[in-house]
């Protein structure tokens, strides 16, 4: 039995963002494919929500939907994005622009290409401050140097005048964080923020984000396929598969008692010191057989059924509903009991 994760926030605090029944679709030439299907979650101030899943499971699309930065072929087809009491879906673009970069910021996976190569990093930080805070060029530059100091870049005054190619990957990601947090946003969407970095740099970046989160109270949606990162940094976790949320729980609870076979499979495929969760003998890592079904041919029942060792005839026929399997722990599986049993 897992201990409840230490949440210092009172239960009655209104969420920063409440996503309700989000459905995002890709419009292809001849058909419409769902990329995000009926996803709901809420995130409170100062909280970190880990969103995990294989590539193509819809986690990035969920983040891009919240920021309303979807590529032209994608659109939000249904659902609500309640942010600060407003529904972001249907918010006129000029109003949305005032939200982006000020209240909701994003950090992307590619620190090498996410910064403009021909602008100084000082300018790229100052730009947000001029836009949203209304600082003059001079003030914004000084503030940008302060932000660089905040993300622990040495010699910030000199670095501000440098270009992205003069910085290492870790440094660039710090600059991205400085840009994202420049206006003290309420919500930070971090899409694989450390995937492209060295392990040691990863730890530094995550530590930095945690520190800044503590001082600013930012809610963070941490999108990653790295369960280790989630275990160390998230308060709650959502597991996504083929566009759907298949499991959600507090982080310790999820790791201790996964109710969905997919989560179980994910946990089994991380190398761990000590005992392995799924005993595949001789300490060999287990893998999830097969691959994520293509969006073009989602099965009628549970999307994970074709790869699932617990699957029964029912799984192939009907999509399992999200149900509370344990206190505060929801999952979408017909056979959650058997999954839990398999752990003991």
């Amino acid at each position: 039995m897992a201990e409840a994760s230490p949440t210092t926030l009172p239960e009655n605090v209104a969420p920063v963002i409440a996503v309700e029944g989000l459905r995002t679709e890709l419009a292809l030439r001849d058909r419409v494919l769902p990329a995000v299907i009926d996803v709901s979650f809420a995130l409170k101030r100062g909280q970190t929500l880990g969103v995990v899943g294989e590539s193509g499971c819809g986690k990035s699309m969920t983040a891009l939907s919240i920021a309303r930065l979807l590529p032209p072929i994608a659109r939000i087809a249904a659902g609500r994005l309640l942010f600060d009491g407003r529904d972001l879906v249907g918010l006129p673009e000029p109003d949305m622009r005032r939200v982006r970069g000020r209240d909701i910021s994003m950090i992307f996976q590619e620190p090498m290409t996410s910064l403009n190569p021909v602008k100084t990093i000082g300018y790229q930080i100052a730009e947000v401050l001029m836009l949203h805070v209304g600082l003059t060029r001079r003030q914004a530059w000084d503030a940008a140097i302060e932000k660089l100091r905040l993300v622990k870049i040495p010699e910030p005054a000199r670095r501000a005048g440098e270009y992205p190619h003069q910085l290492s990957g870790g440094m660039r990601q710090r600059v991205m964080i400085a840009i994202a947090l420049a206006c003290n946003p309420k919500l930070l969407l971090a899409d694989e923020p450390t995937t492209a970095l060295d392990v040691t740099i990863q730890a530094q970046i995550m530590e930095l984000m945690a520190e800044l989160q503590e001082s600013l109270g930012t809610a963070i949606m941490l999108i990653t396929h790295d369960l280790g990162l989630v275990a160390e940094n998230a308060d709650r976790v959502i597991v996504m598969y083929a566009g759907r949320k298949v499991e959600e729980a507090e982080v310790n609870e999820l790791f201790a008692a996964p109710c969905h076979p997919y989560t179980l499979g994910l946990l089994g495929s991380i190398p761990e010191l000590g005992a392995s969760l799924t005993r595949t003998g001789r300490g060999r890592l287990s893998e999830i057989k097969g691959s994520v079904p293509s969006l073009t041919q989602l099965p009628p029942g549970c999307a994970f059924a074709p790869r699932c060792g617990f699957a029964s005839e029912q799984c192939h026929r009907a999509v399992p509903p999200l149900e509370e399997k344990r206190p505060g722990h929801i999952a979408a599986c017909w056979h959650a009991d058997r999954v839990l049993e398999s752990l003991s």
Partner: protein
Amino acid sequence: MQFVIKRVLAAIPVVFLTSVIIFSLMRLLPGDPITVMAGQSQSDASPELLQQLRHQYGFDRPVYVQYGLWVQRALSGDLGYSVYNRLPVWDVLRPRILPTAQIGLTAWILAILVSLPLGAYTAVRMNSWVDWLGTALALIGAAMPYFLTGGLFIYFVAMRGGMLPASGFVSPFVDFWQSVRTTILPALTLTFALIAVLTRQARSSFAETMQLAYIRTARAKGLGEGAVVFRHAAQNAILPVVTILGLQLGSLFSGAVVTETVFAVPGVGRLLVDAILSRDYAVVQAVVLFITLSVVLANLLVDIAYGLLDPRIKQS
């Protein structure tokens, strides 16, 4: 500075090879300046006299000796003597530079002013009617030879419309407005094809840039589409276009050969045609040398501009 010296040194083999090629090609053409002059004077000059003239100008010596002598003189600033015009080559070439430069630069600047915004617009608004129109115009522009474009301009604008002079050139130091009027049609003719090439390049370059991660970052900052395109995409997207701009200077000269003939402009291009027809070796060599040096210089300027636009270049 070191960079400039390196580039200048790299230009030497280019100039050398061009001069060897043009020297040999001219000598491969049947006839020489003496034959052409004798033919035009309609007089029955004796073969002995022609031979004597050839000897006087050194045309009877082996080609490599002639080349050696030409290089030696050219290096000391003496481009030789125009047999056909009976004037030093430099005196023939000098007055021809202004019309070509004025028309060429006008065409070049017009092309930049039109194609960069048009390319950016069509890239952002892909498949809009402006995009289709731009694509159609670019195809027509690339397909139309200069003599056809020029001919149509002369017929419709100059003859039927009577709006602008059909031929000739007036120096801006003599009569500024008349100079502008004589520049417009040849410059438009030249710029049409250039706009076609540059717009396509700008469009694909902008379209590619708009897909990049830092454009998404710029949008995530809450910037409007205008700021995204002009502040973040433009400086990156024009880099490949700048390269093309330098390369296209060469085609501006080849275009000048045709347009100056069509519009009877006394420029370098026209001089080249006349000099080739009259086998005026020294003039042909001088003009080709002039064009080569101009193109080399333009590309040097392009590289310097590139360094100013792209901070990644300055370092290396």
